[in-house]
């Protein structure tokens, strides 16, 4: 169940201001040809909450993720993370600023071991620069990072697989690895693109527990999801997109009863035609 949050005081209307927003999005637009894939007027995401982003297929959820994380070019608009402008910044710098995203199709680095996958996520390794790699002096940091990685792997129940190639993991294990790897970055904001897609019910439960743990440790989570039961279960706030626009936002219970949301999912005139 959603915990007590300052969001209780917030009006459930699209574009509403939040008491302590970590991410603020303004007038972000992206069109492909003549189609307005994303046209978000204003969106704020409250710090240390789980916000789910829902909407029918083609609503622009993933495109919005791609824009905010620097993986796609925006046509117009601005967005800020913790007050810092992120507009036009390449994807790798966005990650270094503390905003890490995952992908709808899991992207494990197949021919790297599970542990190596984790270590790629570490941001503080000077040995990743050419000269330091050549002259040496990165081993002590590596040792620290391995300890951190092993602790995370243990938490995600992957520690026994540390030396296996990531490509040999099952689909569910790869989802876990991708989430654990994102945590190696020490993000403030985690953006998960359909983390539960194609995952069995038992693993869904375990992923939910992990996502809640992220929030409880002080991270902010935005995730795209289709399963309304999942959304109801763990979201503090729900944002609904349709045809590129945000058509509703509010606490999960409020969203489930919102006629605009039902319209978006089932078609605009379902009531009139019976």
């Amino acid at each position: 169940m959603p915990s007590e949050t300052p969001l209780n005081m917030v009006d459930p209307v699209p574009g509403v201001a939040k008491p302590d927003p970590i991410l603020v999005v303004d007038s972000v637009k992206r069109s492909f040809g003549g189609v307005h894939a994303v046209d978000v007027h204003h969106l704020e995401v409250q710090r240390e909450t789980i916000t789910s982003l829902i909407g029918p297929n083609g609503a622009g959820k993933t495109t919005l993720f791609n824009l905010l994380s620097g993986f796609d070019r925006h046509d117009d608009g601005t967005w800020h993370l913790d007050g810092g402008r992120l507009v036009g910044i390449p994807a790798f710098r966005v990650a270094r600023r503390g905003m890490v995203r995952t992908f709808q199709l899991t992207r494990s680095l197949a021919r790297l071991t599970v542990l190596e996958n984790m270590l790629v996520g570490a941001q503080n390794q000077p040995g990743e620069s050419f000269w330091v790699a050549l002259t040496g002096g990165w081993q002590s940091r590596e040792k620290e990072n391995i300890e951190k990685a092993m602790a995370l792997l243990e938490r995600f129940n992957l520690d026994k697989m540390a030396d296996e190639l990531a490509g040999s993991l099952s689909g569910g294990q790869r989802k876990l690895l991708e989430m654990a790897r994102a945590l190696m970055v020490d993000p403030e904001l985690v953006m998960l693109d359909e983390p539960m897609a194609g995952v069995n019910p038992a693993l869904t439960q375990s992923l939910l527990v992990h996502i809640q743990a992220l929030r409880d440790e002080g991270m902010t989570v935005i995730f795209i999801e289709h399963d309304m039961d999942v959304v109801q279960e763990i979201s503090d706030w729900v944002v609904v997109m349709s045809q590129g626009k945000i058509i509703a936002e509010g606490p999960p219970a409020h969203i489930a009863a919102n006629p605009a949301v039902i319209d978006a999912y089932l078609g605009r005139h379902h009531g009139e035609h019976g």
Partner: protein
Amino acid sequence: MDLGKILIDALRAALGVPAAAYAMSAIGLNLQFGYTGLLNFGHVASMAVGAYGLAITVDLGGPMWLGLIMGIVAALLLALLLGVPTLRLRADYLAIVTIAAGEILRFIVRSQWAAPFTGGIFGIQRFANPFFALNPIPPGRYGVGRLAWDARSAWVLLVGWALVALSFLLVARLIRSPWGRAIRAIREDEDAAMSLGKNVFGYKLQSLMIGGAIGALSGMFLAIDQQNVIPDSYIPLLTFYAFTVVIIGGPGSLKGPVVGAVVFWFLFELLDGIISSAIAQGWTGNLFETTDVGAVKFVFFGVGLMLVMVFRPQGMFGKKEEMLLDAQ
């Protein structure tokens, strides 16, 4: 058929100048292709700019050490020139641009327009005298039995294999560092590497430049041995020799390119010897003439390469389990 002589000649090639040169060249290509996943089909261009950088500098009256530096600098600039516009695009674009660039470069250096510097189609000769003047090895024969080299060749080989060792150690040190892990991550999935804060473009450019510099080293070494740079020896075939070496050794393995080069030149010369003596003895009837040796050799080599790709795609030192992942 003198099998002994054929074998000695094959061994001579396997330990000789071509093997050392292609070991270097393949070490550079392996960094780009095997570890970073860059499809560089114009590797010969970095060999050419290395050789021409050296030859032109000396030809204009510069000292040899400056020529060596100029060769490396030219290769680094070439990598920048090719990499900056293409490395942000999909992998195929680099392949297209590099294969074209290699040929464009060859046509430029052989053109009448560039002839005052490059010597046109005749190239530049006898620019490596200072190198041979440095030879500390006293005259004589060095080796075992019929497998022996004179002092000049021994000096060239000593330097050549030392450069191979140096390139090997450089790449090994890089690959075993977090830098190497980052470029392997990029080979696996660029977007994932980017989402984890890796400057994918910067890494790819560095890999292209380092691989190019090692390629230039190989080009300079070949040119010094022959005291000769000729534009038409820098044809795309050289790139594909280097790819063959990388594939035989196993892409993404450290010792693959070195062992691959030795095996490649051993088999190449062995085949040459066997085919020419088979034709000379008339065993092929009037099917082939002695002038067909080259073509027949390539037919066998092509078939051999296909068999490697089908039955041992990981090469000699690649990991089988890594290859199986690709099938998923």
